């Protein structure tokens, strides 16, 4: 059972192995930087996430750390289209590499496909948080956090498992 992909990750060598490793390390650095940035804009909290997209006009100035206004439709479209497109390409590349590993097909399928669904939930939740009633904003922010964590979890798992398969000491070179 190989999920239609020959498990070649464990036998790649030379330039190809270094090329794939460089890509995985670099894209992880980029992804981690993005998450670090998000931790600044949302303070990694439900309230912070709600304020990021709906503004914090309900917070008195002397209690606010920054003034935020509800994002306008152009900003929302810009953020959503850029992120959904780039996430799809990131998971195409990382998932594509991971599918060449020798792990169980069910695990490969789950980790490679889940981030696409989570991405749609994450940015669908973002649009819902911004445009649907304020009463449900906290719930949508929570949904975004869960979806965001699951995309990152899958990403990290695929990167670590792929690197392990390429560089594990016991592999046959």
């Amino acid at each position, binding site marked *: 059972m190989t999920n239609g992909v020959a498990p070649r990750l464990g036998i790649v060598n030379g330039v190809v192995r270094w090329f794939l490793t460089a890509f995985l390390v670099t894209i992880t650095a980029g992804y981690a930087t993005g998450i670090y940035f998000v931790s600044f*804009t949302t303070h990694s909290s439900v309230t912070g996430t709600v304020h*990021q997209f709906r503004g914090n*006009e309900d917070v008195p*100035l002397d209690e*606010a*750390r*920054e*003034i*935020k*206004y509800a*994002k306008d439709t152009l*900003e929302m479209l*810009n953020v959503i*289209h*850029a992120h959904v*497109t780039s996430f799809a390409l990131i998971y195409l590349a990382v998932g594509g590499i991971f599918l060449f590993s020798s792990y169980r097909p069910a695990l490969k399928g789950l980790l490679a496909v889940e981030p696409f669904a989570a991405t749609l939930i994450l940015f669908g939740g973002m649009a819902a948080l911004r445009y649907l009633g304020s009463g449900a904003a906290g719930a949508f922010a929570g949904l975004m956090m869960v979806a965001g964590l699951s995309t990152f979890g899958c990403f990290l798992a695929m990167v670590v498992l792929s690197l392990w398969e390429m560089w594990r000491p016991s592999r046959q070179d």
Partner: protein
Amino acid sequence: MTRTLRLVALLSLVLVGLSPHQGFAQANAAEHIYLTREQALKEVFPKSAKYVSQTVALSAAQLRQAEHALSRKVDEKSFNAVLAYDAAGKFLGYAVVTEERGKYRPITFIVGIDPHFRVAKVAIMAYREDRGGEVRTPRFLYQYRGKTADDPIRTNADILNISGATISVRAINAGVKRVLYLVTDHYRHAAPALTYEAGRTAR
């Protein structure tokens, strides 16, 4: 070969289409005029009814002193201050229309300063950038009220930043600080007429 070139061209077009349209958006950024000069004067001094316009020339020494105090380059060789009076002729304060460069284009705004050299009100008159127009909101501008030339007027020191409008916030900070310094420095040595009379002003 031709097919390959066509494919590369098509992919390039798709990638250009996917990229954020900052450059195009900036080229299309509209100029928003919010207040005329007369409206702006009424905005910062609602009770004002009479005005005296004064052009204050800055000597080379004053310019150097201003640049040293503000830690920045000061380009103007003079500035225009409007002394505002109410209908009864009572002096309300100074108003200066000024400009600071945002990310690409100048932001035009008015700074109203009370007779004790504290900011009475700041109002945005024209905004020309594609992003950052939130600096004209009362919630943000309220922060300048009461500031003096001795206050830092700096983001995260005594002025809260606006998410997504950082450069515009810095521009308004710099402009308010510059106007406060110039008005305070000049008029504390040359106090204006405290009452207005038709045809002349009396000290």
